[in-house]
């Protein structure tokens, strides 16, 4: 894991008055409206809100998949709102691991190849890629499924491959967008427990509708109409703050 990204002591993510505005015809829709948020370097944060509340928009901006319309977004010491596109690509490659609701595994690659892919983009040597991908898949309990293609795996297995892929470049931040949305509750629970374990060594932000699963997080952030509406859970060890 990279421990070098820490410009603000103990805080991995800092948002200052971050807003995201979309235009739909003549209408202006504020997906995020002046968000101020600090997230610590370790632990699991659950972003909870209704559909269209802005939680995914927040996740995309923190993951450098989208840019804020205004405000400052600092993640692992990098000001994402000012970085050029090429630097954002490098940021996504080295600093963030994504876990998608529909797993988004490349269908014609095996589980092992899917996990090796981000390391390929990062320029890791082939033997090291293979060794590390095998280790990660073993860690998520898929050591016997290395050569299987996504269609040969169950939903839970696919999501575990996706989690292993997210960990491939050892990023300090994992972003999971509804990771249990396509899974049954028992499998969802297992995935959450896996993410919870991963959060012991890095920051994991999970977007979810499911309040019971959100309760497993160290911190729950409620979002409504593009604004944060609730603070950290009492059990949060690292320093965090919400201001709105």
């Amino acid at each position, binding site marked *: 894991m990279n421990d070098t990204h820490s410009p603000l002591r103990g805080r991995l993510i800092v948002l200052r008055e971050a807003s995201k505005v979309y235009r739909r015809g003549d209408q202006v829709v504020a997906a995020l409206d002046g968000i101020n948020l600090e997230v610590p370097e370790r632990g699991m944060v659950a972003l909870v809100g209704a559909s269209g509340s802005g939680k*995914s928009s927040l996740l*995309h901006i923190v*993951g450098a*998949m*989208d840019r804020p319309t205004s405000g400052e977004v600092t993640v692992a010491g990098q000001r994402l709102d000012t970085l050029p596109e*090429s630097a954002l*690509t*490098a940021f*996504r*490659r*080295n600093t963030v691991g*994504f876990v*998608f*609701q*529909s797993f*988004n595994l*490349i*269908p*014609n*690659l095996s589980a092992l*190849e899917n996990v*090796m*892919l*981000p390391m*390929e*983009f*990062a320029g890791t040597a082939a033997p090291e890629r293979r060794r590390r991908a095998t280790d990660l898949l073993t860690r998520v309990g898929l050591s016997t499924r290395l050569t299987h293609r996504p269609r040969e795996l169950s939903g839970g297995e696919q999501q575990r491959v996706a989690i292993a*892929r997210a960990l491939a*470049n050892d990023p300090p931040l994992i972003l999971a*967008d*509804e990771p249990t*949305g396509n899974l049954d509750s028992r499998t969802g629970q297992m995935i959450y427990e896996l993410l919870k374990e991963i959060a012991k060594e890095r920051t994991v932000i999970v977007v979810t509708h499911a309040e019971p699963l959100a309760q497993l997080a160290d911190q729950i952030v409620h979002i409504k109409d593009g604004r944060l509406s609730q603070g950290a859970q009492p059990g949060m060890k690292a320093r965090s703050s919400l201001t709105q």
Partner: protein
Amino acid sequence: MSMVRIGVRNLWRSKLRLVLVAALIGTPFFLLLVMESIGDAVQRQTDVLKESVNNTLQLRSRGSMGHVNMVGNEDLLPQDALAKVKGVDHVAKAEPYLLAMTPTEGHNFAMVVGVDPDDTRRLESHGEAGNPKIIAGRDLTEADRGKRVAIIGQGFARWAGLKPQDIGQAALTLDLKRTHPVIFALDRPPVTLTIVGIYASGYVFGDMQLFMPFDTFREVYGVRDGISWLFVRADSAENLPAVEKQLRAMLGNVADIISPTTVAEFQTTATRAVQRLASSGIALAAALMVIVIFFVMLLIVRERAWEIGTLKALGASDAGIAMSFLTEAILLCAIGAIAGVVLFLFWGGALAHLIFGLGITPFLPAQYNTLAGTLAPAPRFGPTTLGILVAACLFAALAGSAWSIRQIIRLSPIEAIRHE
């Protein structure tokens, strides 16, 4: 796994689509190969025509046949015409002749020709059929310049009582005082020539000729200067009209110029017309390839937008993703090219022959029908064809996928989420 390898593997994701696309791209490749083979056949035709078609102009003194002893036709071209002709652009060779006639019973007369041993032995009335075949003895050589030696046609030899086995010892005496209604006497002594060879031309009158070295002719007939006929060969049929134009401007007042220009113009026109047809076909085939690749790649990019978004979210560069799609496009074209080659090997010859026939027939005079028949295009697959295929593959892949690659670069990583 490099992005190029991902591109290679993506190709095999849908076998059915691969077959359909290979057929779609293979068809224009097939058309391209057919057109290329027509272009090749036309080029070969042009080469053959350049050898077969008469590129040679004939100059002789204005209003005269230029025979030194022919009644009313004894005027010769001025000697300096040779140097002038050699200075004209696109003149490949100038060959001066001296001609006389000698009476022969049964055939009225035979032709006596003075020619440089290096030059073509042309037969009067059959100028395009040069260098008759030696059937006994040998031809004239450099060493014969100025010597009293000659070769004669088999008809003339028969008239003179010369047999092939006599060659080497045989001699023929020309009596320059003998006359004929169209031949006047020259006040010159008879001359005896050693006959070193007998030729056959395939023409009765062509076999009634005698060739001696040019210098020997001057001495025998006492012609100190002047030229009977001057054959001027242009460097190509295309340049023949230009050569003729310059000669007319330069020597038109002293010389008649007999030109096969119409044949040259036919050759140029026909060749250009068919080559234009072939080029248009190649351009059409290339355009079809680009269109097919354009739509196929557009479909693929739309279908895999979420994948592109995912790759971007995982940190793949735009260039890397574009490379994987470009690899796929190039391979699609390559498979299409292979399909086109297979089609071409089976049916290319027949289609090329049909199109070639339709394209060339309107331009061919009747006497060239046989020639055209022997030049039917056949499927040939050489380095040039391979080069054209590779170039076409790259062109179609690059041009056809350019728009899709632009779309790929503009796609946001958020596309990964739209999949959900």
